[in-house]
């Protein structure tokens, strides 16, 4: 397949933020006497933030979270911003191997500040600037609306129909499919357990790949030298 441009989701596609956050959450809840696996945490709490997140956790464990929980998650948040998060395996090599003339953008539900902070840590910011778009900053309706992908394609100066979107989440994939682009599901992150590909296919994603090497093949790009 040949595309004019590639639009990437960020969390869970390029960085392991979904896995890292849920690992800590599983540890904390288990420590509080509520045995929780990483898979449980991913299933129930991915994509939630702020009060919605706290409510979901408290509903699940059936009581209020103690101050120690918040101290620990706050310390982790500060550490993450300071030190960064690991890249999804193969992501850095893949982005670096993209032809320089191929337009690319990031379309994320996180803030541009979050995306830039972590792209900087990975040394990838220059390969995307200035095309970093946030569902909470650049459009009124975030994912699962298609608006953010349409905004990114317009900013890149490409037709959405000739664009490939790389998504790992159900919510993102729904919006990406609605935009009219070709959507490729990526189940390469450590948060993608058995059934992840099936979950993406169930919302209509026709092609799901398990690694960036496979993605390069599907996109007709040279595989990165490793």
């Amino acid at each position, binding site marked *: 397949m040949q595309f004019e441009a590639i639009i990437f989701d960020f969390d869970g596609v390029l960085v392991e933020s979904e896995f890292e956050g849920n690992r800590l959450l599983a540890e904390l809840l288990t420590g509080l006497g509520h045995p929780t696996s990483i898979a449980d945490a991913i299933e129930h709490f991915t994509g939630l933030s702020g009060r919605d997140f706290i409510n979901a956790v408290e509903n699940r464990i059936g009581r209020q979270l103690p101050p120690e929980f918040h101290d620990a998650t706050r310390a982790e*948040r500060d550490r993450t*911003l300071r030190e960064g998060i690991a890249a999804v395996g193969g992501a850095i090599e893949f982005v670096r191997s993209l032809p320089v003339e191929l337009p690319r953008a990031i379309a994320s539900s*996180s803030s541009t500040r979050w995306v830039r902070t972590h792209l900087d840590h990975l040394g990838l910011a220059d390969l995307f600037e200035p095309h970093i778009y946030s569902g909470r900053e650049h459009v009124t309706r975030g994912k699962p609306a298609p608006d953010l992908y349409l905004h990114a394609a317009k900013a890149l100066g490409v037709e959405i129909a000739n664009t490939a979107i790389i998504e790992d989440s159900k919510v993102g994939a729904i919006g990406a499919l609605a935009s009219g682009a070709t959507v490729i599901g990526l189940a390469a992150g450590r948060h993608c357990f058995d059934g992840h590909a099936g979950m993406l296919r169930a919302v209509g994603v026709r092609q799901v790949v398990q690694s960036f090497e496979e993605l390069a093949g599907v996109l007709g790009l040279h595989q990165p030298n490793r």
Partner: protein
Amino acid sequence: MSSPAERRQAILNEIAAAAKLARRDPADIQLVAVSKGRSAEEIEALIVAGQRDFGESRVQEALQKWPALLARYPDIRLHAIGRLQSNKAAEAAKLFNTIHSLDRPSLLEALIKDADRALPFPSIYIQVNIGEEEQKGGCAIGELGALVEAVRRSPIPLTGLMAIPPLGLEASPFFALLAKLARRHDVNGLSIGMSGDFRTAVMLGATAVRIGSALFED
């Protein structure tokens, strides 16, 4: 006429003298320059003199003045010291490092709801209506315990208590009462003391003093 650097140093000297009398370490007391109503030029003169903590009362005014200054001086810490509307909470949480005026559960909820994970949470002082004045901001003394508990059960870090004593009355009994409330609730920080009474506040345990006119005017 004194320069901004001279005025700042004079206040730091007075803070140090008051701290010494109270056998406290002057390094434990943060000088917050109240820059509401001051121009970017006046503010920058203080920044150049070494000032890093600044207090603003209104989110809109702060948004007009500070982004450009913060781009040039990224180590500045901004403090929100005025009454905050809940619909400004998301903007306030992005701009301010510390909020001195949390006075109700709905504002706490608004700060948590839209928190951006790319930013550390702002730290919080709970403002107490220490003189039980009808027109003044701050939570009622009787509601403080519940608000402290709500902050402790949120991701927002609790730094301390803040109060503004009634105008025209001796401030020290009110500062002492706030310090007592802080001990009762196991809270360390005290944001008390302004240009007219900061020496007293330091002697009674202030960890942040909020100074405007004495820093910006002769």
